[in-house]
């Protein structure tokens, strides 16, 4: 049975344009920050090996374009996700208000088997800016929203300074792993098929 377990964990990072999705991903995977990141067009991902209890997993972290207009691409990129990270900028109310849209849009497009219990993690980024003086969304407000949405784990980070990024992604990886394993228990018969031949019935083939 253990050999059957999935070793790829897919994580999707969502959030408004410019909240720091690409930076968070690069800080976690490459331990680097750059002011020169361009706006993400389409999607890209980075992978990182993670270890849990003597087992190795590949964390595949997807970075997507932040503008709402590109949301229709989500269908292609969100499928098979094990965890979704919602990012906002603590210095932007709008980006926080939009978390709900991102969450709902994700559930519609990824269409997970158990949407009620699908793992999300929320990250409030850019806490370093202006020493926190330009902050407009309080931690309390953010935590309240997370609690109301089914106790979503919450982290405050600075991708620039590398603050709390590792911690956030450890939780992300753990939740993704749990989600993947629950899915195995939940749909024991379909896992083998999915792993071996990837048949997909999109209704437009054959």
């Amino acid at each position: 049975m253990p050999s059957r377990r999935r070793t790829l964990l897919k994580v999707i990072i969502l959030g408004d344009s410019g909240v720091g999705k690409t930076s968070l991903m690069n800080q976690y995977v490459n331990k680097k920050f750059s002011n020169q990141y361009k706006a993400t067009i389409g999607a890209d991902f980075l992978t990182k090996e993670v270890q849990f209890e003597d087992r190795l997993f590949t964390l595949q972290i997807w970075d997507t374009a932040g503008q709402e207009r590109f949301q229709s691409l989500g269908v292609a990129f969100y499928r098979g996700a094990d965890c979704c990270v919602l990012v906002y900028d603590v210095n932007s109310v709008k980006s926080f208000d939009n978390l709900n849209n991102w969450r709902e849009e994700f559930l519609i497009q990824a269409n997970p088997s158990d949407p009620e219990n699908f793992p999300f993690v929320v990250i409030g980024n850019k806490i370093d800016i202006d020493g926190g003086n330009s902050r407009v969304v309080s931690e309390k407000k953010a935590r309240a929203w997370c609690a109301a949405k089914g106790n979503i784990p919450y982290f405050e980070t600075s991708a620039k300074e590398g603050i709390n990024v590792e911690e956030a992604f450890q939780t992300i990886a753990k939740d993704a792993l749990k989600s993947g394993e629950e899915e195995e228990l939940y749909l024991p018969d379909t896992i083998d098929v999915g792993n071996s031949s990837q048949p997909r019935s999109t209704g437009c083939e054959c």
Partner: protein
Amino acid sequence: MLDSEIHDLSDDADYAASLQQGSASVMLCNDSTKESSSASELDGAEIVYSKENVAIHPTQFAISGRLKLIKQGSSLFMTWIPYKGHNADTGLSDKDRNLYTIRAVPFTEIRSIRRHTPALGWQYIIVVLSTGLAYPPLYFYSGGVKEFLATIKQHVLLVRSAEDANVFLVNDFQSTLQRTLSSLELPRAVPLARGPSNMSVDESTLNENEERNDSGVNNGSVSVPQFHRRPRHKVHDPARDLSIQVLEKFSLVTKFARETTSQLFRENQTNGFSTNERRTQIQTNLDPPKSSNVAGKISDENSAVPDSLEFDNLSLVWGKPRQPPLDSKEWITFLDSEGRVTDSEAMRKRIFYGGLDHELRNEVWGLLLGYYTYDSTYAEREFLKSVKKSEYENIKNQWQSISPAQAKRFTKFRERKGLIEKDVVRTDRSITFYEGDDNPNVNVLRDILLTYSFYNFDLGYCQGMSDLLSPILFVMDDESEAFWCFVALMERLGPNFNRDQNGMHSQLFALSKLVELLDSPLHNYFKQRDCLNYFFCFRWILIQFKREFEYEKTMLLWEVLWTHYPSEHLHLYVCVAVLKRYRSKIMGEEMDFDSLLKFINELSGHIDLDATLRDAEALSICAGEEGAARIPPGTPPSLPVDEGSFYIQQDDEVL
């Protein structure tokens, strides 16, 4: 000569690797400083076949040469080197001959060889590469096709196609993957055990004394047998797919040959009647390297066919070579005394083949983009410029006059402005023009985008627009002019940014249809892997490859695309060309959607633009009207058709 050619196969690890990867940049003559003979002997390169008087007929003139098969280690290479100094009466220079030279193509890059044995005239073969492109037909004036094939068969696996006895599929068994696949699947589909004696090549039909010019061109366009596609078998049979693909390609190749030939004829005929200017232009088209200094030095010497690097990339593709950029001296030949473009088609064609000198871009981009009309005079353009400047200021004033109090109650404005500000500060900041803190050009970028979002309020601002505007502002170096050029560009590319994404979907759809036409195995592979949405090409198309090339190359690509020559949708053929270039890697490594997306994203900065453009040109000519028919009307950059509602159905098919 012998030495130098054996030396071509010198044991260079990088070179070997580039061959294995199927790289089109076959650079064989770049290390003449090495002690050649000893090195090549160690390599064990051996000529296993050599045939004199093998010719191509690229125009009405033939070019004769020597065909060779060279064995090095376990690899077999084919070369065809035109004779030096012969054929002086044909009017073709050594440069032309060099252009067609086949420099040691490894058999790993050859998909198939088709033998033609017409009842009259010479036998010839067509060599089709795994990219789907083909060399011009090679005519065996002194016979020897049978021997040629038999020799190949001794060194690589050559199997006769089950579909057509004149098609021979090549499989070099270089990789274990191929070996596995072939041992599993090929033997039951194709007769492996056939010996050379079974190939009934009738060499007696060859007439070596026949006048060359008679049958050359004719042969090029005849004897393509009608191919009737059989119903697809349920069992997936790669050999069958391959041969179908090969046959389809032959019809394309022949069509291409015909078009190229007739085009050359046409141009030669016009030449006799034309003005000096026109002749200069045609000459440049036919004989591109003449205007470059490097080539100019050797143009009159019969003896020395240069092994210069500029030719190395040209040998693989059977299409026109790229030219040096159009410079100001040549540019004025396209204008009348008052500044009107006299022959816009010739001008666009010239720009297509070489792009523009950078200092010309400022003058020419406005014309290419349609901001200025070709029949406008210098004076009219100056006048329009001033009129448009005040028009721009008016539109700009619309948002500039929004007071802070008003902005507070104008969410949409604030959001747009915020989005634009976030993007301009991360657009091309490594380019000198935009680099550094408080760079005023970054503010101009912002102002133009914000003004555009008022000019076209419905479309607004969308990510990717800053990428499209950045080179335009850099080139125009004038706020209003850059704005209006951007407006002209967005007339065509605006649908890329539509909320329903229909412009993108129609292009991705057309791309899938073109790949289906031009590379059906690759299409089938994508289909099998659930990749037909082509989202992995999204970035390429959305911003016209802006993120895939360095700045200068992007500008060159854009002006080439804007000529709309030879196709309005050349960018889609560029996509096909890149995919085809990496098809064996994509399929060999069995990439799924994720790894394909990653692979494509990481190609950024590694695409050979000139080679890709030549491939794209050849592909667009190959696809011809059939290709055009697969692109839905109104697909960007075509101007939109009225409220094209037909997209919706097609979306369903792809997505």
